[in-house]
């Protein structure tokens, strides 16, 4: 099966064949990478970031910042770079052409053929990508905090990460996504980006989007699916725990709010930049590589605070529409209308004065108090699943706490092929 991804290019896996790694990597100089880089190595290895085959050099970063494209003209909105501190680079004496073993938690992750070692102008990159250099913006902080120099180079994974329960049930590579759609008979797939436990103002837009994405396909047998693709990356205090997100989303189909033949849940390893419009374009690119044909974009997609206007992301997606191999489905604000007696859209319901908004703060306070929401706010099965996930994985809380950050289970583990060589 040929996998056609972003830019019409084939999605290629970059993984060493089993058993080869042990002998190849034993003498390589090592570079320990942080979580963001580990995630991006895995993304490159499986093709989530296709057509990227490695970390960017200065020419690519410039092109992404200035032109929002790779040097060959392919649309690209977020620089993907690897940083190492100056001391490490000096001590290890990395030079162009060297093969380096990238390790994560001291386990072999990927081989990188060193390209260019260069100084990233983080302030300039931040200004271009986020449209601000305000340190209150978490993406700006993320970009600026990555000190040292950047190293470019093509990446190949030395092995496959082993995803741990409960994530193992939801881990799908781009290739697996394409196979899933073929098995389910889906011709159209609409992606729903999430970092949330689902409440009904998430569920209803997904349902609207199913109709939008189905377009003129026949409906006797489903030819369209909703793919909830959760983003799993670095967590901050107060975020929903990953386990509650993924199990809560899956419960929508387990409990029948979606038919199993129209709904699937998976995740992508990605550390949110909160880059609003540019991040929306990036999400569209990643979901194209998962074979999705449509992507839902709500109000203030991937935004933070009031750095972006509610429909800035929609405007940018419209500007680059011709270069996207995925069709955006734009959603407005959703609310509960006591007069319509349903969750609806501000584009449909004309009772704005009495509309009740689903604010994150309200939902959070219901969950903290453990008071089961009405089924028109959150499905009881989802609530129970989230409560159970809090107990099993969240040290009693559905939200990230210090205990969770320090003691949570790994999302994935890496094997050490060197041990197989020298027991």
């Amino acid at each position, binding site marked *: 099966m040929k996998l056609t991804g972003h830019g019409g290019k084939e999605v290629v896996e970059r993984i060493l064949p089993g058993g080869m790694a042990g002998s190849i990597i034993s003498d390589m100089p090592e570079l320990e990478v942080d979580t963001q880089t580990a995630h991006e190595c895995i993304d490159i290895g499986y093709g989530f970031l296709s057509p990227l085959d490695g970390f960017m050099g200065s020419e690519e970063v410039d092109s992404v910042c200035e032109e929002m494209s790779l040097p060959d003209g392919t649309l690209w909105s977020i620089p993907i770079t690897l940083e190492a501190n100056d001391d490490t680079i000096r001590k290890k004496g990395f030079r162009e052409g060297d093969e380096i073993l990238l390790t994560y938690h001291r386990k072999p992750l990927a081989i990188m053929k060193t390209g260019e070692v260069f100084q990233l102008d983080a302030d300039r990159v931040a200004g271009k990508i986020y449209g601000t250099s305000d340190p209150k913006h978490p993406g700006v902080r993320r970009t600026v905090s990555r000190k040292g120099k950047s190293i470019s180079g093509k990446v190949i994974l030395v092995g496959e990460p082993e995803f741990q329960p409960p994530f193992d049930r939801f881990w799908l590579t781009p290739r697996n996504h394409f196979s899933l759609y073929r098995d389910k008979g889906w011709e159209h797939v609409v992606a729903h980006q999430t970092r949330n436990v689902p409440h009904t103002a998430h569920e209803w837009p997904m349902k609207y989007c199913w109709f939008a994405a189905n377009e003129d396909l026949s409906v006797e047998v489903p030819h369209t699916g909703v793919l909830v693709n959760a983003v799993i990356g670095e967590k901050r205090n107060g975020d929903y725990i990953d386990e509650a997100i993924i199990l809560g989303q899956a419960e929508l189909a387990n409990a029948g709010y979606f038919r199993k033949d129209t709904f699937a849940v998976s995740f992508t390893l990605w550390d949110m930049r909160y880059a609003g419009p540019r991040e929306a374009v990036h999400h569209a690119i990643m979901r194209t590589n998962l074979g999705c044909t449509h992507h839902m974009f709500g109000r203030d997609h991937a935004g933070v605070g009031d750095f972006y206007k509610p429909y800035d992301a929609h405007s940018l997606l419209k500007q680059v529409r011709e270069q996207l191999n995925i069709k955006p489905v734009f959603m407005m604000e959703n609310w509960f209308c006591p007069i319509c007696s349903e969750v609806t859209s501000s584009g449909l319901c004309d009772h704005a004065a009495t509309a009740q908004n689903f604010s994150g703060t309200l939902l959070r306070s219901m969950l903290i108090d453990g*008071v089961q929401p009405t089924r028109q706010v959150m499905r009881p099965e989802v609530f129970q699943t989230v409560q159970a996930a809090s107990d099993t994985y969240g040290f009693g809380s559905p939200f990230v706490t210090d205990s969770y950050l320090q003691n949570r289970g790994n999302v994935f583990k890496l094997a050490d092929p060197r041990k197989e060589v020298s027991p």
Partner: protein
Amino acid sequence: MNGQIMINIWINEERFEKMREAGLSGMAQDMLAGMKVTRVKVSEKQKDILLSEFPMAKFDSSTTGTIELLPRKVKDEIFNLCLEKKSTGEDVIEAFILRVRNGRT
């Protein structure tokens, strides 16, 4: 009511039924898709006692004038006291503080 300190308690269908039985249904205000909130009054002095007894709690003085982040069990107990006393006034918090202090000694 300006400057009145409050504790917000979530009221779902089950709790609303109990409030109705206690004659308190008028005290629940619709917030979101059938979820209601009842506001329990707290005096300045009671606020200080609660914040010292439950150091994780915060008083949101700037926007809502409410005491937030009280442990779940505390809010459950305050709700039960509202039913018992058929009130959402300061007498509820008075009784709650008394219980906490008796539990201590």
